[in-house]
């Protein structure tokens, strides 16, 4: 059935109105969509790398500039021979996971994983490129010489270093101290396959100013659970 032409004035007005609306709204919207297609089509080859790289700098949450840190340490009774790797909550950077103490030498600090600003403001830190107690490898710990590691100036060979973690309690016996340049790579061995504790701080102690020298304290493990089952 053929559609009849609008013959009333109202119908004609309505038809005119719809035509006007189409031109007023629809055409700009369609043109806008086309603009999006063309603009992104033109710019994508140039900006795709930028967007891809830029996405690496996006996170799910807004940045937090809080100075607080997470403490995953809870005292343990385990001074035995072994602890299963499955029972070890391996710490991530800036988390307190233990305590470090050298009795009668004035060293008693929270032990963090990582040695950036947060750990060293609040305690002493294990360099993230070294390992945690019980792992059977090098543990490289740093601390400020005028705060938590000021007591290192008092240590002697034979002193016992006690490290407490949530998965075990460890003791290390100091066997050597050494003063060396910060750039001296012979002061530590991150590839060692025997558990050894290296603590260091700036040297000299109680002196004003920045120094290129460091005071290193070396200790061997004498007790504490070995983490077993690390490697399948």
């Amino acid at each position, binding site marked *: 059935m053929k559609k009849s032409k609008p013959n009333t004035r109202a119908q004609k007005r309505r038809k005119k109105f719809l035509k006007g609306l189409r031109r007023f709204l629809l055409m700009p919207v369609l*043109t806008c969509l086309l603009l999006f297609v063309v*603009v992104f089509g033109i710019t994508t080859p140039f900006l795709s790398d930028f967007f891809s790289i830029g996405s690496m700098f996006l996170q799910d949450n807004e940045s937090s500039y809080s100075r607080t840190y997470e403490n995953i340490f809870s005292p343990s009774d385990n001074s035995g021979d072994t602890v299963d790797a499955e029972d070890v909550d391996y710490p991530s950077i800036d988390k307190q996971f233990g305590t470090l103490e050298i009795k009668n030498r004035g060293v008693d600090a929270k032990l963090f994983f990582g040695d950036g600003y947060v750990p060293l403001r609040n305690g002493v830190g294990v360099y993230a490129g070294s390992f945690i107690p019980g792992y059977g490898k090098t543990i490289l710990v740093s601390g400020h010489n005028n705060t938590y590691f000021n007591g290192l100036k008092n240590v002697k060979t034979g002193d016992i270093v006690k490290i407490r973690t949530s998965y075990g309690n460890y003791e290390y016996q100091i066997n050597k101290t050494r003063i060396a340049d910060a750039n001296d790579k012979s002061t530590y061995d991150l590839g060692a396959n025997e558990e050894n504790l290296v603590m260091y701080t700036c040297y000299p102690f109680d002196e*004003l100013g920045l120094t290129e020298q460091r005071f290193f304290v070396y200790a061997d493990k004498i007790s504490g659970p070995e983490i077993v089952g690390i490697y399948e």
Partner: protein
Amino acid sequence: MKKIFKKLSIKKVLYAILTFILALCLVFGSLITVLRITFFNANFLSDTLNSSQYYKDLCVEITDNLTDLGDASGLDKSFFEGFVSEVLVREDVQTYITNFYEGKPLKINTSKFDESLQNALTKYIKTHHIKNVNEENLEYFSAKASKIYSNSIKIKYFSAIQDLIINNAGLLTVLIVILALISAAICVILIATNEWKHKALRYIYTAISSAGLFLLILPICIFASGVIEHIAILSRSLSDMYTSILSTVLSDMIVISIVLIVVAVAIWVIHIRVRKKSAV
């Protein structure tokens, strides 16, 4: 009949293409204008920093970093309390911005900071009766403190784009002019070659309104996605600065889009009147 039909269609297609090109010119012209008045404008950056928390946060960060350095150097934590002057920081940052936009080297003059530090150290040594002072180590400390200060004053990642800004500021202005001329030319062509002037105005309306919509939708989508708040920047002051800049840029785009839409609506009204006149 077929020829007339063909002629009409080709004309319409050509007008459609011209309309689209006009819309493109308006979009790119507006985007380049926004860039020109923001990133390529020294006053914009200064105003943005002044209206944000940048200086306050920067002073806090400088103090924190100096305190960490002090911890490693045998100084009390309180040594740097209130040490960093916001007035000096503002002055040095403004100088940095001015040098940036003038293409000058971006070296920070830390002489005032160094002098304050030396005075504070001398006073500290005297007050605390410190005898164990190694001048060489103290100089090393002062040099490091100075480096912290100057690195903090420098706006990160800006030096990487200085050449880009300096070399292309003029180009942007030229581009804006060219795009404006092209837009004007297209408008003239549309009006001059179209028998029905109201139709020409309709084409121009379509171009301007679609450009306005584009410039409105894009920043709204970016704002709605929340991407600006989720950029991972280590420094609070830097984060404040970049989010303020990006927010202002997007807001400017919205303002331009509103202007375009208002102009488009005005043209539409004129188009209606012209059409009624030609109908009479």
